[in-house]
């Protein structure tokens, strides 16, 4: 990875202001059938509709095409983006067909789909995009009728002249409208006048996803396309010493065997690609390959040693950033002291669609297709690596069979492009499940040391140290003395207003294990430490866990969530040691409170009886998608808390497939009750913030029932 494309999450999020996304006139997109999720590319664009701007085009029959510039990996951008644009454009979603925009930052703004940023980063821009096109259509009608513009309004795909009730459809107006200069200022609709936003409208991608027609990266086929699998070093950062492909080349269907590499942050991982005329032939031939790897220096890497090192690291002062008051002095004098160490594992993303990419690289241009979270980033990356001008690089997003952060990385796209370039043919590179599970990048595991001093039942001093790999430190030239400010991700900010003496520091763990964003990123592990510890403090202070939070989270949004949890769960009338636990975290500008009830079954095993979640994501687009995202976040959190982890031994990942990396099954997951708070706050994230509070709420519930405090994940629900 090049420095200039370093994966600094904050830098990307800063890019998500859309000031650079100029409206373009005269760029043509195809009108697409309702059941076809086609990808708009320069090569497939036809003059079937007239563009009013980068996102909206309309054909002469009034069919509207809206581009979704973000990836759709289950989180709902394919619905949310058009739902916002269509609202201001005054069309119903029945009139709209949706397709994916190719990577093009100047046209669409930041396209990296991460940090739960699609709505919260782009909402104003997308609303203005719809409103601008609407105003141009109204102006066109006024011009045709020779009436004042303010006598006209738009509704349901038509412009209406109020005094005469004359009407013209958008299809009849689009050509005239496209010749107009887009207005600089537009008035956005009031929230109470929304027809679409805020409604639980059914997702436009659902029909495609119940019949096999949704095209994922794995489903992309090109004429003459070959299929490749790659034997990569099983050890992190291993290099090819030598290889023997004589048996491979005799296997049926094999076309090429070549040495390849892929970038892994500031280094590369080498491998041998086997290219064949179908996927299975390539997989079979791979078994006949003999490779000798140079793994010098990496063979002793293992989980136990890594966590022992983190434990030692926690004794160091670390890099401090967030401090207030005087923690040490206040802690020393506190009437009650509480200390705890928490441990969270490395995790694979384990998207159901393994990593894959289709590449077609020519001398002077390149085009790729795949499950891609950052098409604009990959476009720049490929331009650099292939030395091809950026406007000759086309990056097409298919639907993603899960992403969770994994598919924002550029390793697999670069590797596929290099293979296509070498063999001079279009190729689909498929990662087997084993490749996907063992190669990384992984969510970093972390250890936390928490200390607090209590005076008169209040938290007087609070300290957290985190030992973990720092994702930012993997980049070439990274400043390794910089504080990992991700340590406060997940922490409800209002604690820092009510606790006078606090200190947060991190000790970056050095390791060659590649690590990357994983749904909710550092919040996914921080939340467990913070909200388990708050529960421990409530116990020590002999306070009700909700009351302790109420006393310290003096913020109306938090207080409303606490009240809501109390009401839904019947908190006050719950029995003593009833098995209830709560946790509240903040992630990507949304606040989520969750409550879990557990009980012991006749056989002594633990059972989750109820899961309640309250999501405050401010202004929102589609409540049903929000509920689905919270449900999904909870299931993913349940897995990381109780059933799976990635371990390492001899420099390799241990868990290779789902028989070892055991994900929750349907029987593990009870129904959930999800509530959305109504307020006038700005939009927060939706796809990730439901994840962090679940593990601590579950473990707090187990403590409430059994008195056993769980400080290390994952744990086995059947063995508590």
């Amino acid at each position, binding site marked *: 990875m090049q420095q200039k494309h370093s994966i600094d999450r904050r830098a990307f999020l800063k890019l998500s202001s859309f000031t650079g996304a100029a409206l373009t006139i005269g760029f043509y997109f195809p009108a697409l059938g309702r059941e076809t999720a086609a990808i708009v590319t320069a090569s497939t664009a036809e003059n079937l509709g007239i563009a009013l701007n980068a996102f909206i085009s309309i054909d002469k029959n009034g069919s509207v095409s809206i581009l979704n510039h973000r990836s759709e990996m*289950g989180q709902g951008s394919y619905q949310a983006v058009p739902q916002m644009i269509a609202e201001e454009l005054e069309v119903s979603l029945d009139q709209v067909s949706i397709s994916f925009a190719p990577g093009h930052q100047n046209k669409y703004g930041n396209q990296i789909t991460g940090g739960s940023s699609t709505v919260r980063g782009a909402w104003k821009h997308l609303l203005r995009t719809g409103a601008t096109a609407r105003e141009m259509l109204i102006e066109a009608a006024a011009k045709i009728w020779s009436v004042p513009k303010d006598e006209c309004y738009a509704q349901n795909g038509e412009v209406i002249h109020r005094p005469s009730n004359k009407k013209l459809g958008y299809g009849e107006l689009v050509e005239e409208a496209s010749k107009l200069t887009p207005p600089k200022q537009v008035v956005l609709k009031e929230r109470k006048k929304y027809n679409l936003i805020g409604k639980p409208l059914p997702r436009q991608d659902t029909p495609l996803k*119940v019949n096999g027609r949704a095209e994922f990266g794995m489903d992309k086929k090109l004429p003459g396309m070959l299929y490749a699998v790659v034997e990569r070093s099983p050890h992190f950062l291993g290099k090819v010493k030598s290889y023997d492909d004589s048996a491979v080349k005799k296997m*049926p269907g094999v076309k090429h065997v070549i040495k390849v590499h892929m970038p892994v942050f500031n280094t590369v991982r080498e491998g041998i690609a086997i290219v064949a005329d*179908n*996927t299975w*032939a390539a997989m079979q031939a791979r078994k006949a390959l003999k490779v000798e790897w140079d793994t010098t220096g990496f063979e002793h890497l293992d989980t136990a040693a890594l966590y022992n090192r983190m434990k030692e690291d926690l004794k160091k002062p670390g890099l401090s950033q967030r401090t207030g008051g005087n923690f040490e002095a206040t802690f020393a004098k506190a009437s009650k002291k509480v200390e705890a160490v928490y441990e969270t594992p490395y995790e694979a993303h384990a998207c159901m*669609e393994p990593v894959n990419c289709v590449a077609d690289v020519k001398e002077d241009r390149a085009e790729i297709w795949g499950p891609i979270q950052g098409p604009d980033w990959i476009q720049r990356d490929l331009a650099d690596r292939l030395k091809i001008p950026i406007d000759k690089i086309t990056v097409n997003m298919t639907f993603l069979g899960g992403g969770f952060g994994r598919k924002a990385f550029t390793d697999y796209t670069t590797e596929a492009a290099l293979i296509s370039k070498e063999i001079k043919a279009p190729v689909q590179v498929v990662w087997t499940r084993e490749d996907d599970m063992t190669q990384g990048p992984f969510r970093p595991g972390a250890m936390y040391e928490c200390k607090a001093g209590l005076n008169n039942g209040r938290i007087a001093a609070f300290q957290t140290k985190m030992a973990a790999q720092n994702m930012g430190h993997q980049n070439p030239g990274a400043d390794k003395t910089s504080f990992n400010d991700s340590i406060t991700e997940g922490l409800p900010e209002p604690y820092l207003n009510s606790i006078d003496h606090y200190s947060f520091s991190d000790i970056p763990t050095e390791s060659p294990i590649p690590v990357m964003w994983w749904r909710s990123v550092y919040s996914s592990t921080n939340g467990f430490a913070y909200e388990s510890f708050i529960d421990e403090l409530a116990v020590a202070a002999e306070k009700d866990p909700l009351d302790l939070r109420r006393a310290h989270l003096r913020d109306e949004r938090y207080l409303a969530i606490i009240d809501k949890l109390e009401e839904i769960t019947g908190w006050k009338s719950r029995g003593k040691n009833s098995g209830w636990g709560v946790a509240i975290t903040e992630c990507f500008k949304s606040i989520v409170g969750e409550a879990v009830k557990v009980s012991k079954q006749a056989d002594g095993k633990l059972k989750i009886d109820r899961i309640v979640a309250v999501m405050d994501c401010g202004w929102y687009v589609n409540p049903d998608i929000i509920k689905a995202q919270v449900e*999904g976040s909870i299931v993913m959190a349940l897995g990381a808390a109780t059933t799976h982890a990635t371990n390492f031994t001899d420099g390799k990942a241990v868990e290779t497939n789902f028989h070892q990396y055991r994900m929750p*099954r349907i029987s593990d997951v009870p129904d*959930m009750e999800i509530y959305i708070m109504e307020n006038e706050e700005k939009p927060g994230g939706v796809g990730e913030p439901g994840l962090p509070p679940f593990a601590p709420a579950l473990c707090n519930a187990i403590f409430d029932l059994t008195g056993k405090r769980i400080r290390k994940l994952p744990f086995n629900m059947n063995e508590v």
Partner: protein
Amino acid sequence: MASYKLSINGSSFSVEADPKMPLLWVLRDLLNLTGTKYGCGMSQCGACTVHLNGNAIRSCTMPVSAVGTQKITTIEGLSTDNSHTVQQAWIAEQVPQCGYCQTGQIMSAVALLKRNPNPTDRDIDMAMQGNICRCGTYPRIRKAIHKAAAMMKQPPAKGF
């Protein structure tokens, strides 16, 4: 390599394939029926679920040579217009998120409802245990199966 005549979704297909090639890759790479998904390659996740004579099987570990004259049904064979009751129930409950595992989930659900039109939660847990969903759509899958069961009792339900 050998020649096979396969009955898929009511049509006959001839393919030349290695006898050991799993049905999954025959469907995907040789016949371009890409609704059936690769997830694990070892019958662990259910993304590749299809029907053989109406029974749900994992196509990623079923060699093409073992199929014989058994009738294969893939997701593409359920309906041409999303009118199958289970597809309708999936839409009504808004089950899919990323959608990658859903074709396999639906094929498992269709097979379940065929042999048990009134499944309890426990029956659903047992029958759907082999299908993983990383997006965590399980509660909605459960609701959709109950809904499909209810819809099947109200004519004119299509399918089955």
